[in-house]
């Protein structure tokens, strides 16, 4: 009798989106490869999702240095220079790679999966002899991009990192047994990876398979929206606006600004019910209270609430925005200043889907937000449909590698 196939899954803790889609992919992988055992090397807040889903978090995970804390320490108001924050995370990435290095010398796995597990991908390419299992890489964006105010220096740096990635893949094509882009070729920005480097889309099409978007949930759950609203306790005579900033502690300033708009929004939309989801890393007790304003800690099935709401106000992170797109709900999003992924990659993708209304945090006053809430709440939308089989397609590709 052959021993069960074993998978080590690493899911980036920066944003909660990876966790949800990775759980969905793992579920599909189990259906395709009966008996497969999946361990997770992961940290808070991903572990919160994994534990709620009954997944096995490997005990070595306790040794991981926390990336979310670092990202939070790098943020200011509604501003996160995520490229520089990521660069300055270098010692955390080395430390966490070494946790992985030790673990895979103690335990045999047949497949390592890294969903934006930057340290794994980087050091495996730096030292291909480290590889001792099949390896699959997942990401929903390719290419560091400079912000306009970073000038020539930042453009030089992003191109240098992109160039290193291109060189790694060219020099060691056997490290990744599979590279999956979570999305479609049209989701990719038209930019180049840098001067004298390929266009991002061309390069990605040559080096990745496309899984389509992975929503991480079963859209059948909210096919009957009226019923879902009733299940979640939302009354027919109220219009629900959910304000949420994802899994890191970075979004507190946005929460506060939208909460400051609540009074005027309530005047404009008398049946408004505003629910603020602080997330697992913001203490709700530190937020201002107001009559009619409901503040929650973490909501496990947030996607269901988003599917049931009449409007969402969110950061510019990909997962939440795409959950709203898939559910066909109107939403307002505020990309974090200096966050190239939210400002370029996510924005490009949402434009393609015709989804969301973008507002600028810095220049939007509470009255502007209140007016936008009035205009958007309950609006009928006609977004490009989001595929529902992304998790399955990703799992099929992983199962091929594992076979």
């Amino acid at each position, binding site marked *: 009798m052959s021993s069960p196939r074993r998978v080590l899954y690493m899911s980036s803790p920066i944003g909660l989106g990876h966790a949800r889609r990775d759980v969905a992919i793992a579920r599909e992988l189990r259906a395709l490869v009966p008996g497969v055992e999946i361990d997770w090397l992961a940290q808070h807040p991903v572990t919160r999702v994994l534990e709620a889903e009954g997944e096995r978090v490997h005990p070595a995970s306790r040794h991981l240095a926390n990336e979310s804390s670092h990202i939070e*320490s790098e943020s200011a108001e509604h501003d996160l220079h995520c490229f520089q924050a990521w660069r300055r995370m*270098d*010692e955390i990435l*080395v*430390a966490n790679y070494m*946790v992985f*290095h030790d673990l895979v010398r103690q335990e045999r796995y047949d497949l390592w999966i890294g969903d934006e597990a930057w340290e794994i991908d980087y050091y495996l390419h730096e*030292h291909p002899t480290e590889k001792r299992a099949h390896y699959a890489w997942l990401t929903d964006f390719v290419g560091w991009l400079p912000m306009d105010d970073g000038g020539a220096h930042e453009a030089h740096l992003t191109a240098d990192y992109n160039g290193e990635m291109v*060189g790694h893949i060219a020099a060691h094509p056997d490290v990744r047994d599979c590279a999956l882009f979570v999305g479609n070729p049209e989701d990719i920005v038209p930019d180049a990876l840098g001067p004298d480097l390929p266009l991002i889309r061309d390069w990605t099409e040559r080096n990745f398979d496309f899984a389509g978007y992975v929503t991480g949930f079963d859209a059948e759950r909210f096919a009957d929206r009226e019923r879902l609203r009733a299940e979640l306790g939302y009354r027919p005579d109220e219009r629900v606006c959910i304000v949420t900033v994802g899994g890191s502690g970075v979004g507190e300033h946005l929460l506060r600004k939208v909460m400051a708009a609540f009074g005027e929004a309530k005047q404009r939309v008398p049946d408004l019910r505003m629910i603020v989801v602080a997330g697992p890393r913001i203490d709700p007790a530190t937020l201002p209270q107001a009559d009619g304003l409901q503040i929650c800690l973490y909501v496990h099935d947030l996607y269901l609430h988003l599917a049931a709401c009449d409007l969402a106000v969110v950061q510019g992170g990909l997962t939440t925005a795409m959950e709203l797109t898939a559910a066909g709900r109107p939403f307002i999003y505020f990309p974090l200043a200096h966050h190239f992924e939210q400002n370029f990659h996510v924005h490009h993708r949402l434009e393609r889907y015709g989804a969301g209304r973008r507002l600028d945090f810095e220049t939007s006053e509470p009255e502007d937000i209140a007016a936008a809430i009035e205009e958007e709440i309950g609006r009928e939308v006609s977004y490009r449909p989001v595929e529902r089989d992304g998790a399955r397609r990703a799992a099929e590709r992983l199962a091929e590698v594992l076979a």
Partner: protein
Amino acid sequence: MRAREPDETGYVNRDGVPIYWERFGDGSPTVLFMPTWSIVHSRCWKAQVPYFARHYRVVVFDPRGNGHSGRPAEPDAYAETEFAADAVAVMDATDTEQAVVVSWSKGAQRSLLLAAEHPERIPGAVFICPAVPLAGVSPERARYMGRFTERLETTAGWAKWNMHYWEHGYRDFVEFFMGKIFTERHSTKQIEDAVGWGLETDPSTLGATVLGPYIETREDVLDLCEQMSCPVLVVHGEEDAVRPVEIGRELAEVTGGEFVGLPGVGHAPHLRKPVLFNTLLKGFVEREARAPPVAAAPTGSKEGDSQ
């Protein structure tokens, strides 16, 4: 944010110079990461500390002249013997009876002194790209060696290694020097870090460190190696543009140590290729310096123990 914060920090004071140290973890053995030239400080071990603290016990300290340590003005305060004595004082202050000592570049000199004078306390020594007077330097650099206090006609290349230039061109020198340390492509972050550390001190302090007494002759190195008794590992980048790889190879020969040359790597393999270096260092500690496992306590109780 740091990947791991120290479990304990403190200062030792030697002749009025405060020396700042940090201790991480409480395993065994202790690995003492020595300071190198004071153009950088103990954060240069940032890619090692979290990993080795998880397995062993780690002690680092800032060199006099940078970081949180004192900055005496006189060159004599920067004698190699002073750095070696600082290491002994830090070991005493942290209750470190023995430590595997790991040094980089100029840190090799103080490590040799330490290992030669206190062989009973140093069960192993690891040298990264050692800067000791063996095997020579590149002709480009040799041209300006020993001319640190001289007024030069040029400020190009290694002529920047000059106290007069530092008075107004210190930052340019630091950037030049760090560019020579990291000759590998795609080293922007390592260079940025190192330049930042270099700018935490000042040209006058750093000038004093250059003028302090150091190990000047090949014979002195050979004498010290003769006195050493511990296992040695030398790791040297084969593309090192600051101290040629031949130095490391020769140091390994004269100490009877193991030599690992890293193709395509410059003067700071522990920062530019940390996974590779950490693996080499871990292997060395496991082979040479791991304390034998404590014999298991006898099981079963003696008669009468339960009464």
